[in-house]
């Protein structure tokens, strides 16, 4: 039983990295499909397309970040061993949920927006600035979730 706390924290880290990463993977995939379609017409757009395709990738990074924070918190990344009881482990698990959930869904939504914006720059390459801002609107909610996860992780006392 004395390991349960730490394992709950590990579950939290796994969910954060896993779900946010999946969301990003799907999002980047959706945007990439649209990008490949555009590049069959105009391979010269590679740079712009790559930029827009990369935008839904941040959720994965946020998930990874939270996961690292979580396992750092319970002393799995070197340093002195931290005794973690079940309640603290549950706390870490719950703290990981905002970015796990919001990261997954916002990654997909942002991928769709990016794909639409890739279509937009195919027709109007001069509007790249606006095309970059629209997917960033979606990312806001991943940023807020990341913020909450970090604040929650930070507030759990050991």
């Amino acid at each position: 039983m004395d390991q349960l706390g730490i394992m709950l924290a590990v579950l939290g880290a796994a969910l954060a990295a896993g779900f946010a990463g999946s969301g990003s993977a799907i999002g980047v995939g959706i945007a990439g499909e649209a990008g490949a379609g555009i590049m069959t017409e105009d391979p010269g757009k590679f740079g712009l397309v790559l930029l827009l395709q990369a935008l839904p990738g941040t959720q994965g990074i946020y998930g990874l970040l939270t996961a690292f924070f979580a396992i750092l918190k319970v002393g799995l990344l070197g340093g002195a061993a931290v005794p973690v009881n079940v309640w603290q482990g549950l706390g870490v698990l719950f703290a990981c949920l905002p970015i796990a959930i919001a990261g997954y869904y916002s990654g997909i939504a942002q991928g769709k927006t990016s794909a639409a914006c890739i279509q937009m720059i195919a027709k109007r390459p001069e509007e790249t600035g606006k095309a970059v801002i629209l997917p960033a609107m979606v990312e806001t909610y991943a940023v807020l979730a990341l913020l909450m996860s970090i604040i929650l992780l930070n507030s759990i006392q050991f």
Partner: protein
Amino acid sequence: MAVGKVRKLRLISHHEVVEHVVAVLQELECCEIIGREDGGGSDPDIYDPSGRSKAKSPLDLESGLSDIRFLLRFLEPLYRNESSPLERMLGPKPSATFSELSLLHTQTDLPEITTKARKLERKLAEARSEMAQIANQTLLLKSIRSFSHPMWIISRGTEKVMGVMGTLSVDQIDLFREEFEKIVSGQGELFIAEYLEKQAETHAVLIFSRSHESQVIEMASQQGFSKMECPHGLESTPGKEIERLESRREDLFAEVAEAEARSLEMAQEWIPSIRKLNDFLLITTARRDTLVSGYSTEKVSILRFWVPSASLDQVEKALKPFEGLIDLQDEKPEPGDDPPIVLDNPGWAVPFSPLTKLYGMPSYNGIDPTVLMAPFFFLFFGMCLGDGGYGLVMGAFFLYALLRYNMSGDKKNFFVLLLLGSISTIFVGAITGSWLGDMVDAFDIFSFVRPIKDSVVLLRPMNDPITFLAISLALGVVQILFGIMIAMWDAFRKGDMVGALGDQGGWLALIVGILFWGGAAFDIGGQTALVAGKSLVALGALTLILTQGRDKPGFVRKAVSGVLSLYNVTSYLGDVLSYSRLLALGLATSAIAMIVNTLTGLVSGIPYVGWLLAVLVFFGGHLFSVVVNVLGAFIHSLRLQYVEFFSKFYSGGGRIFSPLRFDTKYTRITGPGLKE
């Protein structure tokens, strides 16, 4: 703050000098031509009443440009240039004078080059298509290689005998042979190509007397035989035909190689000139379009254009030599006019002007938000990136690029903007103690700089995120209140007192009141703050209730709209919370950097190759991190300007000033715009 003033001018010039005048205006690059309301342009007589420049008739220009487009499309991908891609992207374009280009234009026989290139292109296309055809035919012939009769039996046949080729299901072969024999009764031949055990279908050739044609064809289609057309030109037996095609293919191969080599040569020889000619024709076309855009009488042409007030002297000075043959007049702007927008910013804010252009230019009577936004963007970018090490890396890169390549225009502005961003990043990194994350603390070799690093640290967001969050939200409140005040000032300026006091004043009082009230709840400011807060809230809310329904008819609807408008307080709350991204992104940068450092520490423990892996992880990881975070910091600090700040006072809708200029793609024109 306000956009630059522009003047509307009318220039009447004698036909004799009009071409020179347009060339001078183009060289000045500060006059935006106003086209004729009826469109103009379709009447070539207006352009050249004296018939002097036949060489540049619209048709010549168009065909020249279309030739050049073809040449660039065909030859440019083959052109090898020694300069690096970065150099070509950032560096200055090669310079040339207009007379040089003009001379080049007369000396170059563009139609001849084009004909040559078109021939080469056609040759290549034909050879490649024939090679594809040969590949298909060879494939087919190989499948019936053991067929011993010449192919003409199938393609032509004789008077009495004909052949049909096709595919047949392997299971059907025996049955098919039986049926076939029944019809032809010895006077025909069935050839079945060899097949492997796994194959479901094989090729077959039927040879039979023409008198049996209809019977055989009917039987064959019933038995699942599908006919194939025999390619034309195949005469001899498959074996010999394969040999013939093979040798033809080799010839074609040589032909293609030769044509490719010649195209390559042509590209090396002509692309630099073609690029220059492209620019020359673009310049001339712009001039011609300008000439036909004006009205014209028997003796004079009338051009109308916008000039920024600041450049007026310059225009007058440049037109001095034509005195007597021209007349420059001020024209009164009419209500329907759509003056172009010139951003007129002080030097320090100019690098930020691409951000305004990105959103959309302000309207002519509107506010230019560049100066107002610049300090916030500067600070927010630094907070979002928030790492001294990354700031240094990024600053070094952009400084190098600026010094190395002689950039101009918005490209330069953008690079300077990011350089400024790196300065604020270094500053924020220093006071939060983040240098490539926790690098200084993580690796003992940096222990000697630890005291220096720690001496300037004011705040550690990793340990105390709430304070940093409070700072972020406070900055949000400041920027939003600032935005409301700008809108208020703008309304005053336009004489809209009710709007200024009702819309903006009401919200200002309400929000400041809420802040005081909230402050008092946390024991800041004491009783005075509480009273002040409550009264401001009451004043603000009352103002809003009284004014926000003023467009609605009837007392009840006015009152309902007024009360409902208070609900908008949630949108202000949302706006302020949105600034929490300053903390989140700043933390993310430090944390990703910290992860890279931790991983570096972990892999360095691996025996033998640990040091190599550590170096790879450290540099690769931080490089990735700096790219991702710079992108994120830029986008998100921009978003705060566009969505949270601009929405308070700014509406775009202006038209960017696009003067008649040397709008070239490959060359930079220096010197006068006329032939010397």
